[in-house]
């Protein structure tokens, strides 16, 4: 029942990681923080330091799935004049750097462009697909049709609260991978990534053959290794964004970002299953 894979999509990368016996590292950064150019440089730096997939965040005025770190970066990006169109410059650059860019966008930003027009533009800019934190498959008919038409991945989320019925419904609409939220809550580093994540991955695997990647709360090499022990991919966001926020200037931020990315990349290789 898995949909055919797309040449633009992330399936190839995840297959390669699986063949290497390791989890993939997926790094999130928002477009426009600290500037559009700076954010693109940061995404490329992450690629050079070892991420397998870049999650390209689109800053939104009302990011209700995000904690304080990403909220701050998004607000700064918007105040600096970042536009939705800048997303496509970022996806082009990430693709050129050699890894698939998967865009994470709140739904109204896609809706406003027109779902099909947005999908066409994303595909033309080398995008692998979309992660949609506030769009559930039940509301996604237009997006499912558009992503089929343009060969894009569709990553919907499952959560610890998801019933088995919801897991089936959500995973059957996904293409690329399934995003498992490790805990109930918003983005941001946590001291522990709960045992709930492993349980959720197990429940998700029971209803789909798609890769299952885990996000929310992962910030360290040790956590990456722990999650890599049971998931196909480890998604890191706030901890990477914080490298840029805490730096006094961009070069310092890029250096911190490279170091953390390399640590996390080592982590996903330590969690052999």
């Amino acid at each position, binding site marked *: 029942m898995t949909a055919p894979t797309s040449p633009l999509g992330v399936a190839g990368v995840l297959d390669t990681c699986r063949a290497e016996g390791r989890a993939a590292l997926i790094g999130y950064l928002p477009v426009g923080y600290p500037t559009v150019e700076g954010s693109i440089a940061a995404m490329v730096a992450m690629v050079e330091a070892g991420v397998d997939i870049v999650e390209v965040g689109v800053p939104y005025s009302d990011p209700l799935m995000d904690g304080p770190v990403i909220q701050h970066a998004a607000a700064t990006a918007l105040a600096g004049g970042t536009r939705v169109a800048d997303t496509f410059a970022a996806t082009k650059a990430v693709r050129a750097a050699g890894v698939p860019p998967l865009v994470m966008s709140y*739904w109204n930003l896609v*809706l406003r462009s027109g779902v099909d027009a947005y999908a066409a533009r994303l595909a033309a800019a080398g995008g692998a697909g979309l992660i949609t*934190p506030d769009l559930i498959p039940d509301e996604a008919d237009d997006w499912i049709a558009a992503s089929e038409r343009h060969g894009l991945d569709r990553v919907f989320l499952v959560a610890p609260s998801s019933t088995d019925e919801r897991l089936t419904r959500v995973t059957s609409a996904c293409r690329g991978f399934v995003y498992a939220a490790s805990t109930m809550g918003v983005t941001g580093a946590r001291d522990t990534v709960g045992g709930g994540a492993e349980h959720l991955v197990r429940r998700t695997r029971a209803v789909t053959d798609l890769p299952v990647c885990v996000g929310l709360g992962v910030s360290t090499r040790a956590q990456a290794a722990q999650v890599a022990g049971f998931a196909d991919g480890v998604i890191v966001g706030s901890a990477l964004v914080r490298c840029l926020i805490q730096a006094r200037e961009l070069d310092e931020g890029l250096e911190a970002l490279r170091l953390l990315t390399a640590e996390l990349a080592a982590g996903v290789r330590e969690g052999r299953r």
Partner: protein
Amino acid sequence: MTQPSTAPGEETPAATTGRFGPFGGRYVPEALIPALEELDEARQKAMVDPDFLAELDRLHRTYTGRPSIITEVPRFAAHAGGARVILKREDLNHTGSHKINNVLAQALLTVRMGKRRVIAETGAGQHGVATATAAALMGLECTIYMGKVDTERQALNVARMKMLGAQVVPVEHGSATLKDAINEALRDWVTNVETTHYLLGTVTGPHPFPEMVRDFHRIIGVEARAQVLDLTGRLPDAVIACVGGGSNAMGIFHRFVPDAGVRLIGIEAGGEGIPSGRHAARFATASPGVLHGAMSYLMQDEDGQTVESHSISAGLDYPSVGPEHAWLRDTGRAEYRYATDEQVMEAFALLCRTEGIIPALESAHALAGALEVGRELGPDALLLVNLSGRGDKDMHTAARYFGLLDEDES
């Protein structure tokens, strides 16, 4: 227990799948879907459960103060083209506004779902006060999210909520008003959904909120329709209400929807006027979009980023509007106008001086609308206006506006 009697046309409408034409839906993180399904099931069961209905009815009679009265206001009406104007007095409810209707019902549902904590957003503070009140009454833990700007302009309501035992969290990001308070409440909910009910205060948000909150406020129109018929022997020519999220308006409109001869008129916040860009007149300027879980009309820029709204009344200061209003508007069943801050303050002062009633600034939008509609329709017209709240909370704003304070006090 006795079941409250239900006359034909007064029963709660059947539950739907949460779409009003293209509007509504559930644009929220997957993590919340099980809670929304649980809530939908609980409220559907409750609405046909004689025990639930009897308990809600008892609370409304012995605690809220229902039925609320209607008041004819001839001295005010003299300024409205001589039309007959009747006010539905939701301002006389316990806690001072219509908000308590929905809050008591959702608090009862919270208890039935076995949850011990409620959270809510508030703009003017009326919904927050009502929620803190119900939480105190039923022994629930309560956290209220309120934009920092609103905590300052409604400081008295913050004190009321705290007296009632609620924790009030000022929200500082974004525009620090109602929309940001809702973002923060949703973040809390997604984290604590197992133990917590989000007691949403208006007819927006993900399904089943728009429909459920409407049903809990529908009593306003059910009572008012019978009261107006009893007093005047006929139906009103127009029913007029202010529209922020739109709960008081849906509450008074809904029973009249089948009465084709009755115009339903919603009044939005015109703020400093449409050209200024500082307003909350969604229907005059906005286009369909998604915010806080629902598709509706939304003030947004070219990219789909939410545009900040403005109104002198915190309760109408919201960039979107309940999805059923969007549908009533697009189908032509209801019409929407706006009143500017200036028109609103004029209507506010007029009701104070002609009738001895101090309305909430939100409700004063409906009064400004009535002045305009009355002048259009003339002396034969009969207007029913929802006076959704009382104005005590707005005294500071009004005193400053009318220069009633010494400089050092203002």
